[in-house]
């Protein structure tokens, strides 16, 4: 490989590393570091660190337990059920975890709309008919524990595991299952499936672990003290360096978990290449019978319950039980006084429609740019053999959002940098710092799915590097790159901790606005704000789905007319 090309590739990789880690370094070195305060801060972080790791472990386990059976059962079911299952699974990914956390409190909290009647029905309620005794009955607060945070996060992130398992399952030559079944029956199938699918599932679960480690909003809502909260305390005390230092223990944890995930996923690619990548064997194994379809349906319901069904039920409850219209306070922007769900939705839209449009455009732009950059980066890194180096970017996931925001202020609020600081570009940088590692990881996985043989064949046929990239690599990697785009879009559109800090004045974005209205509002406002945010997140996804479906239908009708 030519030296200039290699140098350019190394330069681009270093630039990506700088974008991801510069906020942390700025926070760390931009303020005076007091060793005594640092020691005190570290002492105070030991307890929260235990809870943080605990919730991340529960989250990873939960996503594994939901994701693996979901993927296998849904993949083996009939096409319609499969489509419905995956659609619902992807919708789960679009629901911001803090909305799920709020729904859990409403339905399953100590005074939950479901938990309390169920406990009463089961005989745990008060024996007395005294209305005060009945009103005082509350369920011990499971939702306010770190395992509950893990369950919520695992419920939200299980599709990551499911997608990894399904990907491995689809790329496996199903003749191996059939051979095992003939030789050893169900036990043989189980053993083969475990060997082929376990690496993918474990790798993805490790990624879920890494993502959960730095979650801030859900633990705060569910009153679980995490390292993120300890970091926020240091920020409140004005000690940015100590705050940055507190995040250091998370870095190796995330790097190790992420690296293990990448290695295991890479092994799973090798393990499942029996039918050669890209050449999916015609034999797709035995399809499930009626019992299998039923199991797939039930598993889908079960898997989407923690994040989707609980949230939709809570939203419906809040909307339906909304109080009748009351006398409104004076003022145009009176979301808080707009009783009734539709009134509130209209009020939230009036107040925040500019924010919504701005968020869609900016998150879409960020996702597009991140996907393009991640694809280029992954391609360059693979060409010069630096693929594993990109794994270090994963450590960026360990940098808490408020630190990213404050670090960016330290970097860009100087001289010519203020041009960036005063524009929405600063928000793009924050989102890049937070989510670019995920886009890179997904792009790497997507590109790795494209067999080298196809590219070599195209080269032998005379295709140049650009044509090979466009017609072979991008075409083959498209589903994975779309996943990278969606992941970056969803994460960016729903991010609020860093966004609230660095969004330029006069250009608010939807997530901070909605989260604020949601926290302050009455029931119908809470429901309306959640629906607004979910609508904004789902809009581009729905558009893409619409285009795909209409293209498919047009193709079918064209074939029919020929």
């Amino acid at each position: 490989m030519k030296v200039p090309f290699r140098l350019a590739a190394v330069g681009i990789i270093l630039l990506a590393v700088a974008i991801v880690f510069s906020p942390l370094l700025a926070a760390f070195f931009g303020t005076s570091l007091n060793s005594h305060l640092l020691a005190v801060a570290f002492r105070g972080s030991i307890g929260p660190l235990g809870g943080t790791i605990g919730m991340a472990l529960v989250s990873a386990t939960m996503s594994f337990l939901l994701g693996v059976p979901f993927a296998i059962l849904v993949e083996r079911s009939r096409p319609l059920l499969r489509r419905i299952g995956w659609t619902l699974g992807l919708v789960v990914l679009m629901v911001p975890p803090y909305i799920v956390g709020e729904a859990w409190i409403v339905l399953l909290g100590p005074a939950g709309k479901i938990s309390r009647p169920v406990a009463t029905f089961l005989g745990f309620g008060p024996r007395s008919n005294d209305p005060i005794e009945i009103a005082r009955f509350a369920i011990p607060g499971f939702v306010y524990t770190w395992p509950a945070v893990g369950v919520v996060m695992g419920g939200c992130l299980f599709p990551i595991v499911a997608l990894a398992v399904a990907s491995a399952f689809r790329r496996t030559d199903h003749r191996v299952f059939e051979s095992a079944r003939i030789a050893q029956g169900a036990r043989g199938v189980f053993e083969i499936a475990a060997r082929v699918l376990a690496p993918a599932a474990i790798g993805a679960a490790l990624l879920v672990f890494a993502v959960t480690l730095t979650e801030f909003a859900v633990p705060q809502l569910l009153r679980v003290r995490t390292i993120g909260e300890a970091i926020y305390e240091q920020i409140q005390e004005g000690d940015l360096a100590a705050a940055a230092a507190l995040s250091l223990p998370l870095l190796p944890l995330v790097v190790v978990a992420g690296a293990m995930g990448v290695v295991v996923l890479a092994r799973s690619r090798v393990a499942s290449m029996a039918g050669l990548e890209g050449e999916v064997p015609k034999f797709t194994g035995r399809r499930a019978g009626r019992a299998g379809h039923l199991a797939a349906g039930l598993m889908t319901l079960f898997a989407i319950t923690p994040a989707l069904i609980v949230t939709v039920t809570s939203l419906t409850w809040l909307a339906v039980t909304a109080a009748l219209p009351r006398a409104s306070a004076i003022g145009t922007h009176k979301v808080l006084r707009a009783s009734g769900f539709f009134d509130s939705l209209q009020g939230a839209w009036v107040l925040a429609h500019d924010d919504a449009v701005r968020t869609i455009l900016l998150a879409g732009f960020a996702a597009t740019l991140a996907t393009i950059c991640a694809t280029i980066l992954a391609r360059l890194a693979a060409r010069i053999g630096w693929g594993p180096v990109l794994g270090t970017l994963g450590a960026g996931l360990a940098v808490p959002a408020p630190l990213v925001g404050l670090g960016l202020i330290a970097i860009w609020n100087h001289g010519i940098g203020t041009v960036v600081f005063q524009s929405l570009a600063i928000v793009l940088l924050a989102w890049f710092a937070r989510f670019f590692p995920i886009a890179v990881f997904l792009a790497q996985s997507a590109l790795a799915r494209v067999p080298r043989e196809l590219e070599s064949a195209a080269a032998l046929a005379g295709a140049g590097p650009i044509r090979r990239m466009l017609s072979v690599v991008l075409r083959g990697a498209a589903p994975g790159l779309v996943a990278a785009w969606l992941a970056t879009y969803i994460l960016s559109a729903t991010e609020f901790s860093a966004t609230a800090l660095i969004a330029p004045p006069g250009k608010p974005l939807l997530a901070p606005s909605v989260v604020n209205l949601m926290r302050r509002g009455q029931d119908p406002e809470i429901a309306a704000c959640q629906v607004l945010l979910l609508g904004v997140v789902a809009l581009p996804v729905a558009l893409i789905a619409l285009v795909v479906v209409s293209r498919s239908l047009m193709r079918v009708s064209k074939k029919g007319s020929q």
Partner: protein
Amino acid sequence: MSRVNRGPIVVAATAAMLVVLVEIFATIGCGAANGTGVATPAHSTVVLYCGTDREIAQDLIDEFEKETGIHVEPKFDTEAAKSVGLVHEIRQEKEHPQCDVFWGGGSFFCTILANDGCLAPVPSDLIAAHGTAPLDPQGRWLGFAAAYRVLIVNTTVLEPASRPHSYRDLTDPRFKGHVGIANPLFGGMAAHVAALFSNLGDSEGRHWLEGLKSNDCALCAGMADVKNRVASGELWFGITSTIDAHVAVDGGKPVVVIFPDQKPGEIGCLEGYSTVAIVAGAPHPKEAERLLRFLMSTKTERILADGPGQNVGLLPQSVAEDVRPAWIPHGLREMDVDWGKAVQMHPAATQAIKEILLGQ
């Protein structure tokens, strides 16, 4: 061999990306044409960092823009980080301020900012006209539009006779496991605890925190969260602000608002109020002053009293005209707080919170 047709996905993704790119450039283009740098002179803009909730502040911002023609570029905080985010942003931007006016945060955080040299002196005529309304002794911030820290009580679980009447009732064993406050390490509750420490002294303040700990007091995600938990019946009562309490009352929840410590000899309820200050080195000082003068008016306080904020007017003319929501009583006994001293007590209060409530 079957082939997966990925054409539609590629086309769809490319189309979506192109649409987004075109729209973003169109938006940026429109923004450049209409933005402050081209069509409108730069001096007609004022940057407002606003710790006051958006639904409360937006009417006043609109009114100010209509009245003066000055464009306001507001930046709001989140409930979770109430004011802390903006306060630290102003600190972080100290060398190159972006903000002209800081509205919110209360006297506690404004005093912190003032002590850090982040705030500029308020015009002397405004100080002279401020009457008995609260202000910084060194004239770096002005207070207006009061809101009170109250007890919000669920009426279905507590009969009138057994309802609390003092902040000390949070430590009453009768209510063990059923009381809540906002996390006192952050935002308004941090100021509240610091105020209690300055008023009661370190020893009694710690004693109160120990009572909270032994009573399993829930540390909620904010005062709005306290309101939600009490309204649902999960908690029996807790400390919140009149702003949040009114949301629950107005929403028909089974709650009642109690102004605590009103009996003779008790410390009175904490009066919080909105604060406004001009940031030192503000990029638009003249516009900042106009916004400050606009906010320091009875008209403003009346809008705040009638709107979602439900604030009580504190400016001399507002007091004379009795600008207040009808449900907030007259003659409230208020806690005597020296906010300068409260700021000094803040580190001790924070340390006590960590040691006692968090076991660090």
